């Protein structure tokens, strides 16, 4: 029973971080920009979500505000992406530094959003899961079974919207910007605007995942952002290593599955007795190991080709 709860718990977390992975995928893989804004925008999403959810206390409205809070979180995240994008394209700040600057500034902004409190709780209020929780019993397993489909729906909507977007003319221009900027300019596309748009979409999705996490945990924590970008990158690289990266759809599915695999792996290691304080180190190490596997895999493949050519 304990393992079932644990397993369902890591799937629940994995699905939330899969949304995060989609956002990081847009900046890291589509735009080819390692965007550190993520550590800030993830918390911005959580902060906006809890503050907006709290509006139900004076105003009522059932789950209207929790659901609206997800959209507001996306928009707030998009704004943080636009700031990084403008710093990078208009002021020519290198992308890494632009992300660091926004992320640092966001630490204060997030506290301001949360009314100068390091944590804000929405315990006892309606959240996006409330109607479904009411349908099931109060034991841990059935609660998780009520929560998971809701997260799955949010993930599915995000995925479909992203796939659709990347196949539109705008989305294609966005992908080309990350692939070959010279060519994009020669095709009369404003590459700078595309980067700003891409970072807006990326951080919007990241903030959405932060909001879903806040709804799931019933609180927002101003300090919870540290290392978020590494979790996103880990999910993407694990996904690519195990599930491939042949096409855009393959890439996106890989990122989602990678996030779930990552979460399951983490909970197994923690279950084996690793103290929780090692969690961030573990995240970083997983990225390094996954990259090692990718690089060696490519080397082995090349060696195989060489050996096959020798035989001919």
């Amino acid at each position, binding site marked *: 029973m304990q393992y079932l709860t644990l397993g369902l718990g890591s799937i629940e977390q994995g699905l939330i971080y899969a949304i995060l992975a989609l956002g990081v995928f847009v900046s890291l893989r589509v735009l080819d920009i390692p965007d550190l804004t993520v550590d800030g925008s993830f918390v911005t999403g959580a902060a906006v979500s809890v503050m907006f959810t709290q509006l139900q206390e004076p105003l009522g409205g059932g789950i209207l505000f929790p659901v609206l809070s997800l959209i507001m979180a996306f928009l707030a995240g998009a704004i943080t992406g636009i700031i990084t994008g403008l710093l990078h394209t208009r002021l020519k700040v290198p992308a890494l530094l632009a992300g660091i600057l926004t992320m640092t500034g966001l630490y204060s902004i997030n506290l301001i959003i949360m009314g100068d409190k390091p944590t804000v709780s929405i315990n006892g209020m309606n959240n996006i899961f409330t109607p479904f929780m009411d349908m099931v019993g109060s034991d841990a397993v059935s609660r998780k079974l009520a929560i998971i489909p809701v997260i799955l729906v949010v993930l599915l909507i995000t995925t479909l919207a992203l796939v659709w*977007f990347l*196949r*539109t*003319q*705008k*989305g*294609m*221009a966005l*992908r*080309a910007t990350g*692939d*070959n900027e*010279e*060519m*994009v*300019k*020669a*095709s*009369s*596309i*404003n*590459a700078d605007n595309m980067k700003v748009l891409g970072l807006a979409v990326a951080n919007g999705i990241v903030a959405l995942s932060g909001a879903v996490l806040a709804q799931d945990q019933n609180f927002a924590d101003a300090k919870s952002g540290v290392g978020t970008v590494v979790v996103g990158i880990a999910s993407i690289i694990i996904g690519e290593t195990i599930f491939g990266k042949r096409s855009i759809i393959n890439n996106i599915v890989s990122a989602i599955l990678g996030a779930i695999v990552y979460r399951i792996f983490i909970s197994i290691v923690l279950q084996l007795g690793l103290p929780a304080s090692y969690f961030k180190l573990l995240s970083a190490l997983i990225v390094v190991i996954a990259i090692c596997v990718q690089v060696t895999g490519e080397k082995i493949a090349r060696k195989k080709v060489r050996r096959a050519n020798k035989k001919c």
Partner: protein
Amino acid sequence: MLTLENIYLTFNPNTANEKVALNGVSLQLEKGDFVTVIGSNGAGKSTMLNAVAGTYMTDSGKISLDGEDITNMPNHKRAKHMGRLFQDPLKGTAPNMTIEENLALSYGRGTRRGFGIGVRKSDEKFYKETLSRLGLGLEDRLKTKVGLLSGGQRQALTLLMATIVTPKLLLLDEHTAALDPVTAKKVMDLTNSIVAENNITTLMVTHNISDALNTGNKTILMSGGKIVLVLEGEERKNMTVEKLMKLYSDTANDAFSDKMIL
């Protein structure tokens, strides 16, 4: 059609590395002109092309295209009316996107990119027809990633992309220099036929003197950031590769000895 009036451009002004790249360039292209540009390394050929394309903004002078002043227009806006090929065959295409996606991107040149679907089914037939004229079999590989093609195939594809929406001006910057002789000839022949068919005004930089004389209707020789010789009409017809080669090396030596004196 394209007019350059007294263009000056200096790199790293007021520093030890100051370099006058364009030193008063004036040039007039009529509609349908195919001008070839030759000159030694550092003569300012590519810089002139970059100034026309808007990659570099000029210090003074005026550039106009089809009567419109484009001197201060950013390069992505100028690209609405210009097709461009670089020496590096990898520069003109997006490697991780498919052939049809690359074509669709350039087919949208000059239009606003909206939320319509990127690669329309209805355009597929057109892409196939366009590709089939390359004679490279690419029409059966629409879903292939461009990164898997050879340099020559990519340059040929770039040529198609640059002209799929007929541009007012085609800029070719040594676009066959990195290709093997057979492929280079193929791409050059293709360039000639596409340019002739659509009567595209073209400016081509080349290091191949015989290409410079045998293609197009005008040849200009650049040296030290200036146009030092314009060949057209009878004079161009009577010009041989040897004679031009001599003129070419004379100007190159002049530029060289100027520098030595300084």
